[in-house]
């Protein structure tokens, strides 16, 4: 089985956030990075599938030179080789553009399974995998909790709302977006890190993928980024003690949703 796992490098959640001079994103010189959380679970799922069914795991990441550290991390945990999609033209892509580049890169490999995380911890679009699947003409399933592979097809468990699940069967090749927490992440080992140095990381740019600027033109744009304004609102609940208690319970359950 040949599995491609898409890994996004995202700012660590304890990063210092300052808005950039252009006002449309955060200042990247202050940031430290890590693998997007649900992508790490996708990688683990891929490694476990490979252990069960044999084959190959390819770690793919799109972004500037720094994202190579994400690929190296995946190689250290056991991925077999890397694909680094890097081009100045990829710098300001929206979810559609990223999906398109990933789809183009995936086409260069005869993959059986393309995994992404459910969504990224920075933008949170939850679209990349779905867009790539559509562009590849492959079936997809989102919020995947479990994967069972059979000959030429797979059965996957999807998370629905309110504790419901759905099992669906898909033919391969397919695209799955993986939910966080579905398996136990392994650590890289020091030997794994040393072995990773010998593994190949192939670079592909827009030209190599045959992508022109039409495909990459953003369909969506971030105009302005700002910190949410902190506001305090005090509201007095009035009535008899039992009325107040009932109102409070209602607010807690339906507005604050703490129950």
């Amino acid at each position: 089985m040949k599995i491609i796992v898409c890994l996004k490098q995202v700012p660590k959640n304890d990063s210092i956030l300052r808005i950039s001079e252009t006002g449309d994103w955060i200042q990247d010189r202050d940031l430290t990075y890590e693998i997007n959380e649900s992508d790490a679970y996708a990688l683990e799922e891929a490694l476990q599938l490979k252990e069960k069914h044999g084959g190959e795991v390819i770690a793919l990441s799109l972004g500037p030179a720094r994202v190579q550290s994400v690929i190296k991390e995946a190689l250290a945990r056991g991925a077999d080789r890397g694909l680094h999609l890097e081009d100045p033209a990829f710098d300001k892509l929206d979810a559609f553009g990223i999906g398109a580049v990933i789809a183009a890169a995936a086409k260069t490999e005869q993959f059986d399974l393309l995994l992404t995380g459910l969504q990224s911890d920075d933008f949170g679009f939850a679209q990349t995998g779905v867009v790539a699947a559509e562009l590849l003409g492959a079936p997809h399933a989102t919020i995947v909790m479990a994967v069972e592979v059979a000959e030429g097809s797979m059965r996957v468990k999807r998370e629905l709302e309110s504790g419901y699940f759905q099992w669906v069967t898909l033919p391969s090749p397919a695209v799955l977006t993986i939910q966080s927490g579905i398996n136990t992440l392994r650590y890289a080992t020091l030997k794994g890190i040393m072995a990773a140095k010998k593994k190949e990381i192939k670079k592909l740019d827009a030209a190599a993928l045959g992508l022109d600027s039409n495909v990459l033109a953003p369909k969506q744009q971030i105009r302005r980024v700002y910190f949410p304004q902190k506001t305090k609102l005090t509201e007095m609940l009035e009535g008899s003690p039992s009325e107040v208690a009932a109102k409070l319970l209602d607010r807690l359950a339906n507005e604050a949703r703490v129950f």
Partner: protein
Amino acid sequence: MSAREQQIRAARGGSFLFEERSSAEVFTREDISEEQQMFARVAEEFMRKEVLARSEQIYAKDWSVTVDLLRKAGELDLLRVDIPEGYGGLGLDKVSSAYVGEQIALMPSFGGSLGAHTTIGTLPIVYFGTPEQRAKYLPRLATGELIAAYALTEPGSGSDAMAAKTKAVLSEDGTHYTLRGQKMWITNGGIADVFIVFAKVDGERFTAFIVERGPGVVSGKEEKKLGLDGNSTTALMLEDARVPVENVLGEIGRGHVVAFNILNLGRLKLGGRNIGGAKLALNNAVAYANERHQFGRSIASFGLIKRKLAEMAVRCYVGDALVWRTLGAIDCALETVDASDPMQALKAIEQYAVECSIIKVWTSEALSYVTDETVQVYGGYGYSQDYPAERAYRDARITRIYEGTNEINRTIIPTRLLKSIARGEWPLGEVAARAMDDALYRTDFGALDLRGAEYVRHTLRDAKSTTLIALDAAARKYGEGLAEEQEVVGLLADMMIDVYAIESACLRTEKLVAERGADAAGAAIEMTSVYASDAAERIADLAREFAAAVTDGDDKSPLWAAFERLAPLRPIDTVSARRRIAASLIEANRYLW
């Protein structure tokens, strides 16, 4: 000469007093490679997700958890870093090893367990084991299947380790030794399977043995300690324990070589853990100071709190400069010897005995300072077990006691250097005479209008000259008798320590400026200048105390004039500099270097 060759030549142990260094010649924390960072990330993740998550059980002394975690660390290869390839190890460099070790400082109790296993427990076999001993033990120590401990100290012999009373007697058939005696304060005492035990063959010849747990090897009860309450420390009773002759480690009668050589590496790695712990405490202090409000403002906005935060940062920055410079130098030295010959490696490391002792003393005192001030920043909450400051404060205290007390290490610093001077390795007399002449006839008191790197360089030169003149005067006045003048030895040690510290910080910062520009290195320049200014004042004071002691009331002694001319005319404005350092900490809400 290639850059690497230049670094190797410059790395020579003891050279810091006699030669001028450029920043390209030294290793700094900023030179840690991507791969080394990945190694450390594994250790950090393991500490956060596995070890800290079980702290309650560890502090409740459920040692089965500690043992499981050590094995888990073994699975991630964290126990094989220093073990040679071919014996189940990775044979990595000392920078990698110390950087992994620094992450372990996230929990000093567990760090103590792991460090005792990998360093003082395992390294004696790495460096002194026969091929058979190495093959028998190292692969199992690498996985954590066997846990190791080091048993040198006894009830009656601590600092004076050679006065051990534990006795080893050879059996009549010559197949085994019978060991009888008691060891004290053995880290991992309650959980170890293998002990490196020091005993005297026939009560005379001090010798190291590999002793497996078994009949006659009995652990005492857990000691109730001030800190490190999450690791096992017990006495070890040897009640006619039978140890096969194959388990003599190193040569009979040469146990001191095993005991003392292992300590150099232990001290150096402890240095990395100490500064790791200090940075952790500082980060807690900064975050707390930002959060806590009194008088309607954050306590971080008060000058006296800023001063503390800034000084803590200075100690962390300078401490890392010392530790990583020395680790890098040792890795350079190890590159020049045959890696497959452990004795050559040890000789290379031994050259740095002075630097290793400096690091032990400096970093343990920095850690004590930082953890103490962290308690102060937390106020009453610093005194509470519900906040992290209290435990960090208690855990820090041991680092000034073990791996050789700071008193013992202070005596080592000048005496070891004077020994290599006596062997003709460094021309102290000549260099000191020149420094004296330069001081007496100097006209450039110009440090006043110097700033940044130039100021630090100027201060460093004067501090070095002062120290060289003092060392030479002490050597000439006391000769062999200097050892009995411990207070004077202590003054010399403190001067040497500060010289190495100023220079290491200076080189780290110059390298930062060269690579990232003065703007990006702003706070580093401030921290280095503050340290240099304070250290220059300290060294001048030490020199005056020294002169008073050695000149026997002769106020015409040229020492007075020389020290006066080498003393700083006045300090820089450290109040403003510390405010700026604090501002960068407060804004980032943590220490960034």
